């Protein structure tokens, strides 16, 4: 019976993505609370002594199964392939704004684009191209690009970002770029037109370097 309970608990923890309380496990299995606690302890020992790939962990909300840290390198190789589908225009714009103006807040990105940047920013965060880089004085999350961003764009550092056509980078560089982008964004928002999408981004001549 107790081996049976251990087995059932193992199955239940396998199915639950969130921690499950011992009381809920007792309810589901029809066992007493102390039997559940004992069986979970035996399960933990079993995984440990038999060097299985799982761990029983007790967290805030209850018990959960997780993989043993030894499995993680292989797990990363299996699951953490960089996801690099082509960027949508919205993602490219958002990423470009973060890259050139970082750190920059989401409201600012939205102002420059003239439309919400929410879903594009979420995707970029999830793919690890941008990250949370602190808070603005008004409490908005500030974004910056990541090391992965540099690697995926073949850049050694942010200094290698190409110059922008029609923009003189020698001037009061960043603040001016920011102001000009905001003015253009507000003008777009007033007119209600989306920004033009460059047909061939690769064709834009780089002006930096000098």
């Amino acid at each position, binding site marked *: 019976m107790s081996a049976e309970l251990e087995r059932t608990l193992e199955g239940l923890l396998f199915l639950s993505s969130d921690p499950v309380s011992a009381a809920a496990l007792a309810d589901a299995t029809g066992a007493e609370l102390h039997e559940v606690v004992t069986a979970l302890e035996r399960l933990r020992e079993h995984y440990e002594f038999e060097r299985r790939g799982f761990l029983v962990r007790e967290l805030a909300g209850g018990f959960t199964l997780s993989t043993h840290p030894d499995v993680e390198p292989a797990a990363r190789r299996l699951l953490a392939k960089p996801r690099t589908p082509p960027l949508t225009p919205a993602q*490219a714009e958002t990423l470009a704004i973060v890259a050139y103006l970082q750190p920059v807040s989401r409201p600012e990105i939205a102002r420059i684009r003239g439309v919400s940047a929410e879903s594009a920013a979420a995707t970029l965060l999830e793919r690890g191209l941008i990250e949370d880089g602190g808070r603005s004085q008004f409490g908005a999350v500030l974004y910056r690009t990541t090391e*992965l961003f540099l690697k995926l764009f073949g850049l050694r550092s942010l200094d290698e970002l190409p110059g922008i056509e029609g923009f003189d980078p020698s001037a009061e560089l960043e603040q001016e*770029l920011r102001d000009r982008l905001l003015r253009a964004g507000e003008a777009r928002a007033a007119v209600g037109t989306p920004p033009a999408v460059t047909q061939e981004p690769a064709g834009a001549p780089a002006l930096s370097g000098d």
Partner: protein
Amino acid sequence: MALVDLELDLDVFAGPFDLLLTLILREEVDLLEVDLADVVITYIDHLERRGELDLEAATEFLVLIAALLELKSRLLLPGEEIEEIELDPGEAAEELLARLLAAHRYRAAAAHLRERLEGEQGSRFRSAPVPSHLRKARLTEAHAVYSPDALAGAIGDLLQVPPPVDIGHITVAKVTVAERLAHLRTLLRRGRFTFSEAVARSDRVTVAVTLYALLELYKQGEATWTQEEPFAEITIEAGRALGRMTA
């Protein structure tokens, strides 16, 4: 079999459904003359009277009636092709039979799938998301797949201030309040007139400016107006001020 019990009373035929089928297949009844909608209605009444649904018979009926409808619609197709489409009774019967067999076949396959699913009820899969620290791509595996020029291009586009909205297609009001004031004063000198007369054949802007001019005259006391009810005609005549002036 319940279909045998389905008694029809149509314009061209009265009798059981299966006999109708036989006669159609033997070309003794012209399918084009049979009101299939009537057959369906009779069938539904028949189901209601029985108060229970024999699934087997229902499926068979549906397959047959759908096949008959399709045959009939093919016969109804206009044009020279009609010769080619004409089915000989043997073929039509084979086609109906093939339909019935296919329906039986997939019904049996469906039963198999349902059993299979039932048999799998005991095994559940984990559907938890992968912990985020295991999902992050490792830097060493990353290599350049994007072009930095795309970023410069995107910023370049964002820097462009859109051209001002082109309102050239909108007719710019060429009428001024002064012109309309003069027009109204001319009319007032002739006596009473209606607002419609004042703006006859005018565009909306002119109407609006005229109304504005009229308000201006009222404020000055040069004109007064009456209106029986909202949206009714407005009658305008000289006001006290003008009266005094002319008096």
